[in-house]
């Protein structure tokens, strides 16, 4: 049955407070979820008090500052620091977003940072995305055709055909959407989640692809696709302003239309 409390070993305790530097007057309190699997202890919330000028522009800057000046064991993923790699997705003040493009100045004096919700935690802010990536792989995110490619040219698309996949193809697989979805929380073992379904849609509507029918067949399932109940958290949180909810609705529409 549904669990309403976290398992005993997941309940969060109060952690350490790293006080603000002497004479600080504009203090930002950054509260961060910490979990170290090797310690055998429960997760805890550490508080880091930073002078506002120390934080830098973005939440990622503040995290790097904390790691280099307060606690070097703080663990998080980051790479491009400009919203294109999707590594630093985390739950910041209750919303899944990319730390590198979330301004500290939009968040107020209290900043709460947790890993993406409802995933196993590897350490601190690093969630285990194994299943998420397997879901992406399961929709076969590559061009599938029977017609051989022209020997001396690319497979061509019209401008209008390209524009259809332009936005869906901009997904960076940060997992903000899937981990914001309650349906994904309860059934991620069988529901593919908005990110994988957006990827599926991107290939279903690709004018060059010849496996549309097989792709739709593979999604026609009460769990893989139809666990989507149009909650729309996915579209709400997408840091790239994509619309997975609409993509899923379009897939459902195509499945109905091919029946009659």
């Amino acid at each position, binding site marked *: *049955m*549904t669990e309403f409390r976290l398992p005993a070993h997941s309940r969060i305790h109060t952690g350490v407070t790293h006080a603000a530097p002497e004479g600080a007057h504009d203090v930002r309190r950054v509260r961060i979820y910490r979990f170290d699997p090797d310690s055998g202890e429960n997760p805890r919330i550490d508080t880091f008090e930073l002078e506002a000028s120390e934080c830098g522009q973005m939440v990622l800057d503040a995290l790097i500052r904390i790691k280099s000046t307060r606690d070097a064991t703080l663990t998080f993923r980051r790479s491009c620091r400009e919203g294109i790699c999707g590594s630093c997705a985390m739950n910041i003040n209750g919303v899944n977003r990319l730390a590198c493009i979330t301004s500290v100045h939009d968040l107020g004096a209290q900043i709460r940072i947790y890993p993406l919700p409802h995933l196993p935690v590897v350490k601190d802010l690093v969630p285990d995305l*194994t*299943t998420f*990536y*397997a*879901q992406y*792989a*399961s929709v076969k995110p590559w061009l599938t055709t029977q017609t051989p490619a022209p020997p001396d040219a690319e497979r061509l698309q019209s401008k209008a055909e390209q524009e259809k996949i332009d936005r869906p193809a901009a997904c960076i697989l940060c997992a903000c959407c899937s981990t914001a979805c309650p*349906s994904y929380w*309860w*059934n991620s*073992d*069988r529901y*593919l989640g908005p990110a994988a379904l957006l990827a599926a849609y991107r290939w279903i509507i690709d004018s060059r692809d010849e496996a549309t029918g097989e792709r739709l*067949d*593979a*999604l*026609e*399932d*009460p*769990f*893989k*696709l*139809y*666990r989507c*109940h149009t909650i729309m958290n996915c579209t709400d949180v997408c840091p790239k302003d994509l619309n997975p909810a609409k993509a899923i609705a379009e897939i*459902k529409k195509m*499945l*109905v239309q091919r*029946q009659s």
Partner: protein
Amino acid sequence: MSLRTPLAGVLGRGAAKSGVHHWWLQRLTAVALIPLGIWFVVSLLALPALDYPVVTAWMSQGWTAVLLLLFVLTASWHSYLGVRVVVEDYVHGAGAKSAALAAVSYVHVIVAVAGVFAVLKVALGGAP
């Protein structure tokens, strides 16, 4: 612990090749319930009184009985489709889920049959 690959876990037993019909019927019944629901509430409010003789007289009219039957059947069907989804969402053990889904099916059939019987009994003059 399992040594299956993550992809094998996600692919599971493959697609069940169903769900379209369920999804479409849920929309179809939802749309039908809008006029039926409004008609039901407005008609009840328009009655001069809500006592037994007035309501049974109203129910015995041909069109009222037909629309009430449609309302009972559509609402039960829509509810069955919706509650089924709720069970699938939240009940996870295989045994518990099968039992809950069976119970949901039975309850909805009982409610629908009882509703239809009640309407017909009044409409066809069986009620005192």
